[in-house]
C-alpha cells in the first residue's frame, strides 16, 4: 500500500496508540447478535424484562425506607463483561453493609486477581449524606501510605457507636490522610461538603467533580479498567495499576492553575455526558410521550340470570335492543424506557372517554318498571323497581325517538411494553400491549329493564374500578428529535362495566388509531 511510503513517526504513533485502545461492549450487543444469528432461539427478552422489572419492584418494596446500595452488584463472580454502565463484582465482595453495619467478606482461595478487587462495600444514608465506600484489595504496596484505620474498621466503630456523623468525619479524614480515591467511592447527593473536601485534597484528578455521581463512576471505572487490563494481561495490568495509582497519589493541586482545572472540569462534564454513567444512562433511554387515540367504541352485552323467567333472561340480549357504536377517545402522557435494543417498557397516565349509542324513544310520562339484579348471597336474580322515561324502540311505545348515550370517563395507569418488530432507516415497526388499571370517575348508564321495554338511567351501577387491556401496533417515524407514532389500537375491558349485582354484563372494547409524539430527555 502506498501508505507504507508515507508512514512517518506521527502516523506510527497514532496507529500504536489507537491499537492500544479497546472498550468492552455491553452484553446487549451480544444478545442482539445472538438473536440475529439464531432467530429460532431468541433470548426471551420479554420474559426476562418482566422478571427484571418484577424483581426491581419487589426489591424496591422490600427495601422501602431502608438504606440501599447504589450499585448493581451480582455475585456471579466476573467483571469482564461489565459495560461502563454496569458494575459486577466478585463473590468475594460479599461484605455489603447497610446502614453502617459491617459484615466480614468471604475470602476464597485460588481466586483470580480480578475477581478479588473489591473486598468490602459499605453504604449508608443519613439526613445529610448518602455514601458508598468500596474498599479495594489491590496490593498494599500500591498504597504504601495506607495504614489503619481502614474504612472497614471505621464502619465497625460506627456500628458500635451507632453514630453516622462520626463515620462521615472519619471517612473524610481517612481519605484525606491516605490520599486515595480509586478505592473509595462516595455518593454525596444531599451535601457537597465531602466532595469539596476531596477537591482540596486530591486536586484535579479525574475523580474530582462537583457531581458526586461522576465522582463515583470515575472511581469505580478506574477499578474496572484495572480489572479489564488484568484479564488481558496480568503483568501489564499491574504496571498500569501502579502507574495509575501513582499518578493519583502524586497529584498535586498546587501545580495546576485554575484554567487547567476549568478545562478539566469542562471535559469531565462532556465526557460524563458522552459516556453516561449508570445513574444518567437512563436519560438516554427514557423518553416521554403524548398521545391521543380517536376510537370507535363497541360493546358486547350478556346476562347472568338465575331463577328468573323475565324476557331479559331469554335469548341474546344484543338482538333485543337497537344500539350502535359511538365515538370516544383517549389521551395520555407516558414514559418509555428502552429496556433492551428492541424492548421498550412504558407507563403513564391516561384519560379515556367512551361512548355508546342506544336508540330509544322518549316516553310521554314516567313509567314503572324493573331491572334485574342478582342477590350476592344466593346468586338468584330478582327484580328491583325503578321508573323510566325512555322506552326500547323494539318493544315499547314512545312519542319521539331519542338517542341515549352510555358514557364513561376514566383515568387509567397503563403499564406495558413495546417490542420492535423491524426497522428500516427512520421507520420502526412496533407491537405492544398494556395493562390499564382504571378508575371510572363519571358517566351515564342506561340499563335495559327486565321486560326489555324501557331503559333505566342508573349511573351508580358503574364499577368504579376496572381493568383494561390495550393492544397496539404502530409505526414509529423519526422526525429529528421527535418520534411520531401512528398505529391501530384495540382496548378491551376485562370486567363488566356494571357492578356485580347487576344481571346485565357489558364488555366494551374500542378500536382506534393512536397518534403519539415522543421525545427523549
Amino acid at each position: 500500500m502506498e501508505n507504507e511510503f508515507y508512514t512517518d513517526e506521527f502516523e506510527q504513533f497514532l496507529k500504536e496508540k489507537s491499537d492500544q485502545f479497546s472498550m468492552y461492549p455491553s452484553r446487549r450487543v451480544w444478545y442482539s447478535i445472538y438473536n440475529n444469528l439464531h432467530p429460532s432461539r431468541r433470548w426471551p427478552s420479554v420474559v426476562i424484562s418482566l422478571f427484571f422489572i418484577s424483581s426491581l419492584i419487589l426489591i424496591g418494596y422490600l427495601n422501602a425506607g431502608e438504606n440501599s446500595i447504589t450499585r448493581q452488584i451480582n455475585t456471579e463472580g466476573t467483571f469482564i463483561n461489565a459495560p461502563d454502565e454496569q458494575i459486577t463484582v466478585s463473590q468475594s465482595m460479599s461484605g455489603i453493609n447497610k446502614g453502617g453495619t459491617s459484615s466480614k467478606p468471604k475470602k476464597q482461595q485460588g481466586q483470580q486477581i480480578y475477581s478479588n478487587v473489591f473486598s468490602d462495600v459499605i453504604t449508608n444514608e443519613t439526613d445529610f449524606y448518602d455514601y458508598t465506600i468500596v474498599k479495594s484489595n489491590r496490593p498494599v504496596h500500591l498504597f504504601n501510605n495506607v495504614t489503619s484505620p481502614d474504612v472497614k474498621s471505621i464502619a465497625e466503630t460506627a456500628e458500635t457507636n451507632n453514630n453516622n456523623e462520626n463515620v462521615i468525619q472519619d471517612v473524610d479524614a481517612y481519605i484525606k490522610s491516605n490520599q486515595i480515591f480509586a478505592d473509595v467511592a462516595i455518593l454525596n447527593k444531599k451535601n457537597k461538603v465531602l466532595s469539596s473536601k476531596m477537591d482540596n485534597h486530591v486536586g484535579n484528578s479525574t475523580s474530582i467533580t462537583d457531581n458526586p455521581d461522576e465522582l463515583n463512576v470515575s472511581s469505580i471505572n478506574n477499578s474496572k479498567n484495572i480489572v479489564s487490563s488484568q484479564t488481558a494481561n496480568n503483568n501489564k495490568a499491574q504496571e498500569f495499576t501502579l502507574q495509575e495509582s501513582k499518578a493519583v497519589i502524586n497529584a498535586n493541586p498546587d501545580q495546576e492553575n485554575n484554567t487547567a482545572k476549568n478545562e478539566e472540569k469542562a471535559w469531565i462534564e462532556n465526557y460524563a455526558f458522552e459516556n453516561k454513567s449508570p445513574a444518567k444512562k437512563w436519560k438516554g433511554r427514557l423518553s416521554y410521550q403524548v398521545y391521543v387515540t380517536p376510537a370507535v367504541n363497541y360493546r358486547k352485552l350478556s346476562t347472568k340470570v338465575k331463577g328468573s323467567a323475565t324476557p331479559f333472561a331469554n335469548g341474546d340480549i344484543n338482538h333485543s335492543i337497537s344500539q350502535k357504536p359511538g365515538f370516544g377517545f383517549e389521551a395520555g402522557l407516558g414514559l418509555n424506557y428502552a429496556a433492551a435494543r428492541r424492548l421498550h417498557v412504558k407507563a403513564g397516565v391516561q384519560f379515556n372517554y367512551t361512548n355508546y349509542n342506544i336508540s330509544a324513544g322518549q316516553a310521554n310520562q314516567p313509567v314503572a318498571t324493573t331491572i334485574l339484579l342478582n342477590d350476592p348471597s344466593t346468586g338468584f336474580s330478582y327484580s328491583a323497581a325503578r321508573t323510566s322515561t325512555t322506552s326500547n324502540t323494539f318493544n315499547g311505545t314512545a312519542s319521539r325517538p331519542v338517542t341515549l348515550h352510555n358514557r364513561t370517563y376514566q383515568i387509567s395507569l397503563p403499564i406495558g411494553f413495546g417490542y420492535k418488530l423491524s426497522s428500516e432507516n427512520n421507520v420502526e415497526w412496533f407491537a405492544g400491549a398494556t395493562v390499564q388499571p382504571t378508575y371510572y370517575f363519571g358517566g351515564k348508564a342506561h340499563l335495559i329493564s327486565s321486560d326489555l321495554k324501557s331503559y333505566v338511567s342508573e349511573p351508580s351501577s358503574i364499577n368504579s374500578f376496572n381493568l383494561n387491556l390495550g393492544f397496539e401496533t404502530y409505526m414509529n417515524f423519526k422526525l429529528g428529535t421527535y418520534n411520531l407514532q401512528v398505529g391501530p389500537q384495540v382496548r378491551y375491558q376485562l370486567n363488566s362495566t356494571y357492578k356485580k349485582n347487576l344481571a346485565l354484563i357489558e364488555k366494551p372494547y374500542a378500536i382506534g388509531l393512536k397518534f403519539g409524539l415522543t421525545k427523549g430527555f
Partner: protein
Amino acid sequence: MTEELMLSGCLKNNATAQEALYNRFSPRMLGVCYRFAKNREDAEDMLQEGFIKVFSQMHQYRNEGALEGWIRRIIVHTCINILKKNKKFSDSIDITNAHSIHIREEMIPSIMQAKQVVECIRSLPLGYKTVLNLYAIEGYSHKEIAFMLDIEESTSRSQYTRAKSMLEEVLVRKKIIQKTKKKTNFFGAV
C-alpha cells in the same frame, strides 16, 4: 478455545464458538468503531452490525491472513457503510475549508495517552476523522478510501492533510506530543 476451534464452530453456526470469538475480538473492535462513531451507543450499533456480517461471511475467510485483520476489515467497512447512510457524513466529507472548522477540544481527556489520542481523533470533524482513521490507522490507500467513500482521490488526500495538521495541532496543545519539524516522505508529499 483455540482459533481453529472457534472458526470451525462458527462455520457450524455454533453459538458457543461465536460467543468465544466475539468475546475475544469485540473489545478491540469496539475501539475501532468508537473512533468512527459519534458516541458509544453508535459504536455498539456498528459493532453489532459488523459482527453479524463477520459471522454470516465466515465461510469466506480463507485462513490466509490474521483472523483479527479480516474481522477488522469487515468492521471498518461496516462503520463506513453506516456513516455513509448519514446525511451529515456526506456533507462533512466535502468540507474543504479547514479554517472554518471548530474542534471540540474540551472533549479531550487527559487520563491515559491511548484514550487521549483516540479522543483527539474523535474530536475532529466527521469527514476528517474518517479519512484519518482509514489512512493513518487502518492503512488504506487514498485510492481505496476514495472508492470506499465515493469521493475523489485528491479529496481524500486533502482531507487527510488537513486532518493531520489539525490533529497535530491539538496533540501539541494538549502536550501529548512535542512540536517537531514536518517530515516529508520520499516523494515530497506529506
